[in-house]
């Protein structure tokens, strides 16, 4: 006997609403950024965080690119201590979701000068928000070419000389920056050893 396949599953309603959610987690599974575009999918913060926790637990050990969790297709990618996820419906073309994910990753990689790690990301959070906003608008893929995204965001990593702030503050910041560079180098080494 053949199992019956419901007709509804077979038909994807033609629509531009491709992405159900996108989120970035750190290596403890904490949310750094997340956007849910379908109000019916996990309407409450608690449900969203549960979902993120579940997805993280199932994906952080092996870098497998794609999984099917809680009835949703999830494509993902990790970098040092960051995890990037794009979620779509089970009928969605998986390659479209991958296109969104790689555009997000490439764009971030560019503005972060290839330092795609937590500290660096958090230091440039405004750039991250703007990039996500240029790639997906309300679930619709707005742009999928990283070069176009960067051009539209026109964001520079904050390093310009300070005009109004005191020299003293300038120095403190520089110092902090150095120690931050050291810190991130340390973490990178740590992670490469752990891997």
């Amino acid at each position, binding site marked *: 006997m053949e199992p019956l396949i419901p007709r509804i599953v077979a038909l994807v309603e033609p629509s*531009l609403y491709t992405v159900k959610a996108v989120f970035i987690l750190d290596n403890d599974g904490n949310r750094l950024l997340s956007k849910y575009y379908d109000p019916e999918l996990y309407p409450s913060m608690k449900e969203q965080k549960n979902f993120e926790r579940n997805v993280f637990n199932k994906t952080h050990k*092996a870098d497998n*690119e*794609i999984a099917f969790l809680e009835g949703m297709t999830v494509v993902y990618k990790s970098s040092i201590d960051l995890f990037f996820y794009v979620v779509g419906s089970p009928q969605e073309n*998986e390659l479209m979701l991958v296109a969104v994910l790689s555009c997000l990753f490439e764009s971030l990689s560019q503005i972060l000068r290839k330092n795609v790690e937590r500290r660096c990301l958090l230091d440039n959070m405004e750039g991250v928000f703007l990039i996500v906003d240029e790639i997906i608008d*309300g679930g619709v893929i707005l742009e999928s070419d990283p070069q176009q995204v960067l051009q539209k965001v026109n964001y520079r990593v904050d390093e310009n000389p300070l005009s109004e702030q005191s020299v003293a503050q300038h120095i403190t910041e520089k110092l902090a920056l150095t120690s931050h560079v050291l810190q991130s180098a340390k973490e990178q080494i740590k992670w490469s050893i752990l891997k």
Partner: protein
Amino acid sequence: MIKKFDKKDEESGSGSNPFQHLEKSAVLQEARIFNETPINPRRCLHILTKIIYLLNQGEHFGTTEATEAFFAMTRLFQSNDQTLRRMCYLTIKEMANISEDVIIVTSSLTKDMTGKEDVYRGPAIRALCRITDSTMLQAIERYMKQAIVDKVPSVSSSALVSSLHMVKRSYDVVKRWVNEAQEAASSDNIMVQYHALGLLYHLRKNDRLAVTKMLNKFTKSGLKSPFAYCMLIRIASKLLDETEGGHDSPLFDFIESCLRNKNEMVVYEAASAIVHMPNCTARELAPAVSVLQLFCSSPKAALRYAAVRTLNKVAMKHPSAVTACNLDLENLITDSNRSIATLAITTLLKTGSESSVDRLMKQISSFVSEISDEFKVVVVQAISSLCQKYPRKHSVMMNFLSNMLRDDGGFEYKRAIVDCIISIIEENPESKETGLAHLCEFIEDCEHTVLATKILHLLGKEGPRTPQPSKYIRFIFNRVVLESEAVRAAAVSALAKFGAQNDDLLPSVLVLMQRCMMDSDDEVRDRATFYMNVLQQKQKALNAAYIFNGLSVSIPGLEKSLHQYTLEPSEKPFDMKSVPLATAPITEHKTGTTTCCRLICTGKLPEKLAPSRQDIYQEQLAAIPEFQALGPLFKSSEQVQLTEAETEYVVRCIKHTFARHMVFQFDCTNTLNDQLLQKVVVQMEPSESYEVTNYIPATSLPYSQPGSCYTLVQLPDDDPTAVSCTFSCTMKYLVKDCDPNTGEPDDDGYDDEYVLEDLEVTVADHIQKVLKANFGAAWEEVGDEFEKEETFALASVQTLDEAVGNIISFLGMQPCERSDKVPENKNSHVLFLAGVFRGCHDVLVRARLALADGVTMQVTVRSSEETVVDVILASVG
């Protein structure tokens, strides 16, 4: 003072999150510097980022504080720092729902949207549309139309996507922009193309002609965007599905041509669309399957996943089409992505031969603990269908399933396993004891009430009939001691069945029952007391009626009748026969608590039962005054088509049987848009002594709005054996011509009629299916007072299967004890059928079939009423 790097964070190492210890109140305090002159863009930018970060973390902002921060933010529009301005747009979007008076920024945004800075324009449009409601939309309509056709792609895309979001709220305004969207669709920019196509389709999707035209245009002109191609493929396959046209149409050709597109995304979308089409032939599938086969060896995990998932679906319908990919699938078994490996194995299980089953099962058990529950369920489903295909493999499967049952897993997963084991037990009698043993072990430590009750119910049904019933008693009684109320109640019901079936166990069961009567829960005590008393009578008929076979009435119907009875108390005791019967026989798969002893259930049903189709008809018919005196509805038939497809009028009939009457419900649809029908009746001419007593017309049948008319027929009282009859039917009505556009009818009409196909009433219309879970007990209960037996030769029938199918559909009775399944390679078979004859007389049929040059059938009928036995035998003959 803002410090980008908090000292505390620095020290704590892993907690180096500059946003970690953010306090909402502190951030809002900081936001006061928005009002300082001159504006410090860096500091303001950082504060806005903090606010958005907090909102993103789920921090709750009160309306007042949000509004205050929002108003302060509006001042930042004075700065010309690009990133700051962009963050203002984001803040506006994030706060649109939590702050009041967000429309205050409308003019600033409109300025940016039409200004010279291209970087601002797109994002400003998206922010503006986010805060614009349908009343204000007209004010910016002009700008939106211009923006849609703007030569800067980001502006045009932003306007198109925002329009799409607004279609939900303001369809009427947005649909006026269709010409602009059309123009945008021919843009050189691939994203603009895609967004324009999406908006156009959304505006036109209810107009099939317009969609077809649009599709023709774009498939011919050729688009550059792969996303747009995917969209076109989806539109084309939807259109193909709706028109149910053949696959020789240009739409199918277009989809097939996309298989040769240079972008993988488009190729996959096309392959997936073809695979999902209903009624695809093997030849049409072949090219799609071969591109999927190529994808199986792609270095991209997502593509391999997509391909194997789609092949898995193909394998359900067309296993042979996928056989060509077996080698590629074999390579995926060891894929490091376990989802891909699982899908590959389950696909192979569907396409492979019986000999490969053992090897594949071994492979899959090596990593089953690593995969997610969703895929474990997929594995169980594959095993389930495999068991149906290769019944001989059930011992391998059973072993595998019992191991899975011991692993950790969620409810859905465990339920899938339990269902699978139960179906194996039902299909293969020799696996019954092993299966029951595994299930017994499972309920020893089962946290899911639903599964425990289901298994207890199964044990009660199957256990007493095994060679060693006593060994199950311990498992069941352990539940009474250890579990929650619902499980205890189900265990009591199961125990009672052992006592009723096995005389030597009865004394021990009575002792256990006695203990259950001390239970702390009402339901458990009530059940125990009830069963105790029934069992002590030691009467087979009582056991059959109250322990083995539950009630066969409709539960919502019973509830209604009882409620009615309490409203109008009378001297007469409540009559169960006045309750309509349940239409779908209570399946054996339901949980134990629902099937047993509904009589003593004190309104504690586990879930609210949805009214069945028949309950709905009962209600509809009772609302018609002419039918109120007919009593409870006995049976409603399936719909019978009385017109050919694609005719002027579509008429379907449902036959409703009552104790002494039948009501024929004609559901009519008028498919002519220039006609209005009034006073529609279906006139019926019976061939036998049936008497048409009343017609209830459908007052008016406008174009494409279905309506119902009814014909009431009295069944012949003097001849109860006249159960079959043929009616010739004619639809009569008053036609008024009308304007196809407005539906406005002319004043005058004329009478007309339309001949329908004949309608048959057969013996099946007088019998309602009833499932007797224990046919033997029911057989004894009815007794042989009116038993009759006759032998027939079914010359035209070649196989036992065919004979069984014919008898069931002819008599319209419920096969019991799974006797509708004829075991393979047997020359004889016994079929058990149960039902209730109109007037509430139980009727049971035992048909012994023997195969030898056609089928010989010996039919034995028992009933509580002699005429019923005669009717059945006469109609079989």
